[in-house]
């Protein structure tokens, strides 16, 4: 069974805090993705990575950064959390030749 895990299921942070969301996959996938999911808006791509130390901006990268130091781990960083970053964050992995993305369980982040 393929597995994508995320470090926290629920997280509450204060405005201005630096937040790290961690994602680990055991599928040896080259590609990893971070999305946020909001009611009525669907999944929106924040950043993705197609290899170690490589990253590409998605559709809504503002206010976020990422880190991919190892193949299995892709971190999403909120440098200074704001209330409009309250959301469900989903990580996914995909093999180089594949199209299907495998998702983690999600982290519900609340910024107060």
């Amino acid at each position, binding site marked *: 069974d393929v597995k994508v895990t995320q470090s926290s299921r629920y997280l509450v942070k204060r405005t201005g805090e630096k937040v790290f969301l961690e994602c680990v996959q055991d599928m040896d996938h080259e590609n990893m993705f971070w999305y946020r999911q909001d*009611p009525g808006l669907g999944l929106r791509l924040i950043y993705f990575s197609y290899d170690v130390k490589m990253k590409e901006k998605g559709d809504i990268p503002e206010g976020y950064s990422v880190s991919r130091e190892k193949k299995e781990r892709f971190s999403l960083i909120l440098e200074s959390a704001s209330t409009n970053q309250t959301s469900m964050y989903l990580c996914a992995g995909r093999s180089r030749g594949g199209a299907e*993305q495998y998702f983690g369980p*999600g982290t519900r982040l609340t910024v107060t």
Partner: protein
Amino acid sequence: GESVGLHLPTLSVQEGDNSIINCAYSNSASDYFIWYKQESGKGPQFIIDIRSNMDKRQGQRVTVLLNKTVKHLSLQIAATQPGDSAVYFCAEKSGNNRLAFGKGNQVVVIP
């Protein structure tokens, strides 16, 4: 917490009936499509996929139909069960190798 199912079109189905969920996609160049299921509090889970050179594909209790002429995708669930209650959304892959996701449909199964 706020549910991903809020603000979505909702299909209420009697247990045992068939469900049909529809999706209109935007890019006529998309060559691959996926249906995902997302239960409350969980990440999206792959259900079935179809390539653009096909118009129908069947899985276990599910069938996906693709109509490229009108850019329409549908998911049919046979003999809907309570465990099928979830948000269903389609995704299309186009040339940049990224997936574009639909907003989803909430399916509620009435026992």
